[in-house]
């Protein structure tokens, strides 16, 4: 019996149609737009001005606080401007625009393909290097990795879990990394285990990726015996931090708690690869694997894209937007965001560009709740989505809080399973935002 998380979850068709496309290097565009808000926390402070020459890998945005991250130039060239530019949702954010000239890298970066196996840095040096190289969590939330690797005083990590679940349909970027860069991912895990001072690591992979499980097993059995491969029964949202901890270790993260409360640190496969490159190759995080997929595209791609490439440039490269495409999403179909501004640029954690057809995206007319309880069954956090939806629409904040709306991870299982097509998550999300605002405004004890 394969392990999985104990509560809720749904089974969307996994649609991994781009799984067999090897990682291709995306050609350098003429112009790059690098956002200063690519991570959770305070936006980075721009360090360059219009007219400055920059090299690939040069620091151009400085971390502005503990929860923030450095940003490095993904290309070499001249800074064309520094100012607000619209992100994928059309909201302006500080961007550095660079006109690309050649591809001259910083000398300190090791550009060879050789795998460096020996970890010479001390734990403190590793964390510093990760912070310097601007590594953030690539699973979606973009939480600065060095913060996650520095547990608060009094908390001690016991395990590291590498998240290879990739439970979102269509996405295959983590899968390709696990298959093509197996050893680098494992080395990244080993580096983070050294930084955390833990001796046991796990890598959780869903069983719809047998090639990745096989590749990982082969290496862990021979030379990475401290890391155990855990095949998981396919279920969405297995890649959620709390769900993955439950699936792999059986531990439950308490309500309002953090994974570290159960002695576990979770890092994504992509993050692990980025950590390897940062620590062993001194290469800052300025490029990542991105899936470009959809039934309406004739060829499926996995690209290695430099951060700051615009979406329309990527779509041009794959032959333009097909007429049948109705919606373009950055991320997976369950939790991704619709791209309304095609001129926006990718960020560090952009994992996919997904083109859906009219049929796939059509919203059906909302019906009445028949109290079937499917949403309650599907909720991986044990909430009652039908109730939260009603309370949120009625503006009953105290009751929303009493029903733990703040525990919602916004995975969308409730909306996916609702037979009446009620946009449950839309309303729960606004209710959650209101409740969180009220909770934050209260004086701290």
């Amino acid at each position, binding site marked *: 019996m394969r392990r999985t998380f104990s509560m809720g979850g749904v089974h969307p068709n996994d649609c991994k149609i781009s799984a067999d496309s090897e990682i291709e290097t995306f050609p350098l565009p003429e112009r790059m737009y690098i956002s200063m808000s690519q991570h959770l926390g305070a936006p980075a402070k721009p360090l360059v001005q219009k007219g400055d020459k920059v090299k690939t890998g040069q620091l151009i945005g400085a971390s502005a606080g503990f929860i923030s991250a450095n940003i490095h130039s993904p290309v070499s060239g001249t800074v064309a401007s520094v100012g607000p530019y*619209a992100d994928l*949702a*059309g*909201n*302006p954010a500080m961007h550095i625009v660079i006109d690309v000239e050649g591809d001259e890298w910083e000398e300190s970066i090791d550009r060879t393909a050789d795998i460096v196996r020996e970890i010479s840095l001390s734990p403190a040096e590793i964390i510093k290097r990760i912070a310097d190289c601007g590594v953030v969590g690539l699973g979606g939330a973009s939480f600065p990795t060095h913060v996650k690797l520095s547990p608060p005083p009094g908390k001690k990590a016991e395990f590291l879990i590498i998240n290879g679940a990739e439970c979102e349909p269509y996405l295959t970027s983590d899968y390709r990394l696990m298959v093509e860069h197996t050893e680098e991912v494992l080395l990244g895990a080993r580096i983070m285990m050294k930084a955390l001072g833990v001796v046991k690591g796990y890598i959780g992979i869903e069983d719809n990726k047998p090639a990745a499980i096989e590749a990982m097993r082969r290496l862990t059995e021979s030379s990475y015996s401290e890391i155990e491969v855990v095949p998981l029964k396919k279920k969405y949202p297995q890649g959620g931090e709390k769900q993955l901890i439950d699936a792999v270790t059986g531990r439950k993260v308490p309500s309002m708690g953090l994974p570290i409360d159960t002695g576990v640190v979770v890092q994504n496969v992509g993050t692990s690869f980025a950590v390897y490159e940062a620590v062993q190759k001194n290469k800052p995080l300025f490029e990542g694997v991105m899936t470009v997929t959809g039934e309406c595209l004739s060829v499926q791609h996995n690209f290695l894209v430099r951060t700051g490439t615009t979406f329309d440039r990527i779509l041009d490269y794959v032959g333009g937007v097909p007429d049948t495409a109705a919606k373009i999403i950055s991320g997976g179909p369950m939790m991704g*965001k*619709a791209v*309304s*501004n095609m001129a926006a640029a990718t960020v560090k954690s952009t994992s996919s560009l997904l083109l859906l057809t009219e049929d796939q*995206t*059509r*919203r059906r007319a909302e019906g009445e709740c028949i109290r079937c309880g499917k949403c309650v069954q599907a909720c991986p956090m044990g909430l009652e989505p039908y109730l939260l939806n009603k309370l949120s629409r009625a503006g009953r904040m105290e009751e929303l809080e009493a029903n733990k709306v703040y525990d919602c991870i916004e995975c969308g299982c409730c909306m996916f399973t609702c037979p009446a097509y009620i*946009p449950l998550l*839309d*309303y729960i*999300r*606004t209710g959650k*935002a209101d409740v969180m605002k009220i909770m934050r405004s209260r004086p701290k004890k």
Partner: protein
Amino acid sequence: MGTTFIFTVVTLSVLGLLLAIVLFLVAKKFKVVEDPLIDVVEATMPGANCGGCGFAGCRAFAEACVKSRSLEGKFCPVGGNAVMQKVAAHLGVAAEEKAPMVAVVRCNGTCANRVRTSEYDGSVSCRIMGSLYSGDTACRYGCLGGGDCEKACRFDAIKVNPETLIPEVSEDKCTACGACVKACPKGIIELRNKGPKNRRVYVSCMNQDKGGIARKACTAACIGCGKCAKACPFGAITVENNLAYIDFNKCKLCRKCVAECPTGAIHAVNFPEKPAAAPVSAPVAEAVENHKE
């Protein structure tokens, strides 16, 4: 048979009497002494319970007025000065005169003026739409057309026009309670002085982008050129962040700015049509009209 009858009547009567005494004593002991004036004041209130005064309904407002014996900072926007005069008379204090206000929608991004750049198919709510992205047009400051203001209005005074997708305020119904102002996630609606004969001049735009960008997104956008501010003889107009704002306390309704505005972003409402040429007396004008037909 007879004794049973008498017994029942006597038992129930005695029981009733005893309970009455208990109830009387309880009522005496736990009596809540309330100022009878609260009831009087509440009776003069409109009873809309809209919360526009900042209190939880008309009763709470009446209680607050009676307890503090002052009307400072208290005003019922629905009842207006007439109701406040009555309340003041009951309390024996002077009421502050306030100019009547009305909700004003500061966006003229109609379907004709603003091109839709994307199609939104999510839940029909400005709040949700606004949290997902900047909106389905290139202007991220403008009205989303989801009708949150319409849902918030208890007086049926604001309605989204299905043709323009911009809400319109019905002046006679609007009580300036401010519910729509709070409901709008883009902060487009403002409470402004109703003005003499309901005449008002205001900038119907919230776009803070630079002129070129604003104009490209919407043909009726304020481009922040500042011509209106220069034209205003009363210093009522300020231009900040590429957006003009008319202070309704300083505006004397001369309408010089309206003529200056290159995009027509400044609206003047409820003014009589300006005569085209030399002023003609009304009967003559009518005759001319008839002749034309």
